[in-house]
């Protein structure tokens, strides 16, 4: 039973990883590709590692640490990458509707 749950979790994680890969291929610009890759692979990693915990219950503590580490590092690194891309003016797709970073900058500049 535990192994079945573990297998299903790993399968679900693999599906999310697949969607991350699809997002990297299909999204129109760097920023949306980055967010597709980060979100889906963070959840995918968590599910896969969580699934492994069902197969090896004695590893659970270490696997929890791995999950914590992935949850901490993956969003931060892609945030830093996206900001760096924004700084060097990597072009956005023409369908971009909102640029929250520019808006907030203008607001803070106007307020000061």
């Amino acid at each position, binding site marked *: 039973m535990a192994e079945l749950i573990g297998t299903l979790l790993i399968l679900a994680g693999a599906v999310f990883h697949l969607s991350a890969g699809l997002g990297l291929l299909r999204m129109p610009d760097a920023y949306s590709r980055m967010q597709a890759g980060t979100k889906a692979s963070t959840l995918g990693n968590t599910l896969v590692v969580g699934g492994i915990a069902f197969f090896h219950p004695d590893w659970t503590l270490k696997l929890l640490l791995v999950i914590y*580490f992935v949850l*901490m*590092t993956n969003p*931060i690194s892609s*945030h*830093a990458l996206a*900001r760096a891309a924004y700084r060097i003016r990597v072009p956005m797709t023409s369908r971009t509707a909102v640029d929250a970073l520019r808006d907030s900058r203008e607001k803070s500049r106007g307020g000061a």
Partner: protein
Amino acid sequence: MIRRAAIVLAVAQFGLVFAGLLVGHVERQSLPPLGKRYVELVPRELGAANVITGILLSYRAFDTLGEVAVLFMVAASVGLVLARRERRKENLLGDARLATRQASEIVRTGAQILVPLIAIFAVYIITNGHLSAGGGFQGGAVAASSVILLLLADPRQRFDQQLLSGMESTAGILFVLVGVAGLIFANGFLDSRVLPLGQFGTFFSAGAIPLLSVLLGVKVGCELSVILDRFRT
């Protein structure tokens, strides 16, 4: 159209190559003679549970010393090349552009949480090198990755280059001294059996291997940190 056909062709060729690997792959049922010898010798002679670290820090420790020397030369030459460029740049730009570059709050807060974690992980890898996967080189690289994170979080951070170089040189000298001790008290240069082997599989075991691992970790970590620090513009 032609581009698409070329892509399909390339994918098909990759598929063929990997299919060949997959079909031709036969799982090894036994170790090759040399590997078998090492797997038997390392736990018996050196008392190290991790055969690879046992080999790297005893039978092949001289090569490891050479690798560290190569890393040291890389650090020195990077300093030589970048120092000249930096001087020219300072004249042109000054510190004005550097001051405007600040990491976002998320990165800074993340670094505060992650750097201690990464440092603990590095120490764990270094000190458990004789028991599980890891060792001085790997742990040193992990330690240097926490230095990258510090630099990303605050690019204006200054490291004490003198302290880093001093620690690195001291670790290097001690490494060689342990090697010389092996020459005097055991069977040869860098023989790890100068210290008692202890209980197999415990933390204090495998002779001088953990000690060499720690020295190697300090040396590699400091060297990589110095290199990274020099890449800052």
